[in-house]
């Protein structure tokens, strides 16, 4: 009888110990990420990484991130490796973060190319991948049956030009030329714009791609001019946009509207490369920090507060990547603060629960069931002259507009 009792007590003690072990709080919350200090994506990647690092510093200054599952704050440890913009190296390093460093949360590097290799890995290891700026639509297809991805910083790239199409329609533009660099990001935007304009009855008179490496657009611009478009939209990476605008400025050609995407992402980079005059009256998207979400913010600092704190901490050059990095930290923070269990499934479920209910400095955070960002949208902006130079200002839609669009652009700018 006594033996049985002792056995039961021992078994109960073991069961309790095992149960407590499973729920024992970690001494640190390990967040694993990659950044590129060299290569094609280095500029945006390092800024995105800086934004995430800043969030880690801020949250640790408060004693760590609040984890609901343990009812207390736990310090955050950021484990980051340099993938040098190489997908091969990135895949190996993501693998290392998951299998060797055993991070609790995985954050992808900048852009779709460096995110792509993390998607199947995260799905296989059932760890939520916080995708900051990897906007390729193919990461979020229903047939992937992937619950372990959440796009935090931007909408999927195919959604970006929808407002642009509406703007063109509102201006009565009937003839549009679309030129794009042959990559996923540019191609999916071009494709959406083409389809949306055609649905609106707009005549897409020119729809062609160029290789990513294109740096001379003079001949192409003259070919486009032969179709007499009222608007020209060029989609490409920064280098493509810069070369396009420089060649347009030097060509002597005139189009009533010219659109390029990168001023929204790296305004200063583009401005410094092409100069104020060439950039005047060019259209682009508008994204934080150019569009300032302050009054709307319901979670985390407003954009102005963030910029002030970032500058105080010695940070420079806040751009969309910096905001996206910081915003990812906020989403992780909210997920840990609301997930009842410290498991990946619980964290993912928690994200679904607060999706659509929080507004951060990056906009409305809302993801669909496949993890694609559907809350944020990108208004149309125009580079307008100011007393000190030029500035990109939101001009459409009216609820986001802070300036009136100058259309058609002045011939002699």
């Amino acid at each position, binding site marked *: 009888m006594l033996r049985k009792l002792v056995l039961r007590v021992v078994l109960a003690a073991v069961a309790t110990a095992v149960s407590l072990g499973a729920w024992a709080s970690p001494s640190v919350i390990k967040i694993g990420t990659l950044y590129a*200090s060299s290569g094609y994506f280095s500029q945006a990647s390092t800024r995105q990484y800086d934004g995430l690092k800043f969030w880690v510093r801020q949250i640790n200054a408060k004693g760590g991130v609040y984890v609901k599952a343990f009812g207390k704050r736990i310090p955050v440890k950021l484990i980051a490796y340099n993938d040098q913009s*190489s997908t091969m190296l990135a*895949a190996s390093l993501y693998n290392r973060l998951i*299998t060797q460093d055993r991070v609790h949360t995985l954050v992808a590097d900048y852009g779709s190319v460096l995110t792509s*290799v993390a998607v199947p890995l995260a799905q296989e290891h059932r760890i939520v991948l916080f995708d900051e700026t990897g906007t390729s639509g193919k990461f979020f297809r229903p047939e992937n049956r992937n619950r372990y991805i959440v796009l935090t910083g931007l909408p999927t790239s195919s959604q970006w030009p929808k407002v642009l199409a509406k703007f063109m329609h509102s201006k009565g533009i009937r003839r549009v030329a679309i030129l794009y660099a042959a990559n996923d990001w540019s191609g999916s935007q071009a494709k959406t714009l083409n389809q949306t304009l055609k649905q609106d009855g707009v005549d897409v008179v020119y729809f062609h791609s160029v290789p990513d490496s294109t740096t001379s657009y003079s001949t192409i611009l003259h070919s486009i001019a032969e179709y007499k478009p009222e608007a020209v939209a060029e989609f490409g990476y920064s280098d493509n946009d810069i070369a396009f605008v420089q060649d347009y400025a030097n060509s002597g050609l005139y189009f009533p509207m010219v659109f390029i995407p990168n001023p929204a992402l790296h305004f200063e980079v583009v401005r410094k490369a092409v100069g104020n005059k060439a950039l005047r009256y060019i259209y682009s998207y508008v994204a934080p920090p150019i569009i300032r979400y302050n009054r709307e913010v319901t979670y985390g600092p407003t954009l102005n507060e963030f910029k002030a704190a970032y500058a105080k901490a010695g940070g420079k050059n806040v751009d969309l990547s910096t905001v996206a990095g910081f915003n990812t930290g906020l989403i992780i923070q909210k997920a840990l603060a609301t997930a009842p269990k410290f498991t990946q499934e619980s964290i993912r479920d928690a994200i679904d629960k607060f999706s659509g209910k929080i507004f951060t400095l990056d906009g409305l955070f809302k993801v669909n069931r496949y993890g694609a960002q559907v809350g944020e949208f990108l208004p149309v902006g125009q580079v307008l002259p100011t007393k000190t130079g030029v500035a990109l200002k939101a001009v459409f839609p009216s609820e986001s507009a802070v300036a009136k669009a100058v259309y058609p652009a002045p011939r002699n700018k």
Partner: protein
Amino acid sequence: MVVAITVLAYVFIPYGYNNQFLLFNMMMYMALAQGLNIIYGYTGYLPFGYVGFFGAGAYGSALVIIYLHWSPFPAVLLGGLAAVLVGMLLIPLFRLSGAYFSIANLAAAEALYYIIANPHLASVTQGPYGISLPQVYDPNAAYWTMLAILVFALILSGLMRRSRFGLALGAIRENPVSAEMAGVNVVRSRAIAWLLSAFIAGVSGAAFGWYISVFYPETVFSLSITVFAIVFVLFGGSGTLLGPLVGTLVLYGAYNYIGISTPQYFQLTYGLLIILLVLFLPSGLTSLLRKRGIDVP
């Protein structure tokens, strides 16, 4: 012996080391280095565009999986055949020699990249939007397939080295005219070596695509793949079975170690390593053994 040690290593290391993709990449580069060794080490032709075969294999395999719903194993073989097909198209490049051959080969690989990434062919190749293969994602099966490819490459390379065919290739490398006069069918021998080399790169690319399951044209046509394979062969010692293996092990190991421990000095350290190699060991690490009279397999 070399093959057995390699197999044992890749069978047992995963039990103690979790980063499977690093091991996969190591195997992949070892296979590519052996494939490159067959054409460069044995015949002296250095193809800068070797990655073209790798990309052709990745895409050939992925497209039959997507459109014809092939299972991955035959698709990997077909990836190899796709690379062989590209290799056959490029055989006329052998009319060139030295740097001209290398550069023309690089241009061919770039042309292939632009064809695949062309948005107007998106309905066939998926263009710049890349490939996604969630339906066959199985990294473990891809890992063992890569090991089989490596074993095949090692056995092939080892057999060639000791065979009459290998000797014929060696004669071509030293002097094609003399080899021809000695009765070697230069055109045929060189073409066979070229296609075998292409096949190894093709199946490696196919297995790589299967392993990562999501990739873009720029991922599988990245020039860095060729550069790594060439550097690994040169560092270890071309024309040997062991050289490319040792070169990959040391340099790819260092690449990953430095990339993690001191990423800020990565390019500097790696560059210095290569400069030291060129200055002091132009025939690769295995030349140290040969100088001491040790026969290097």
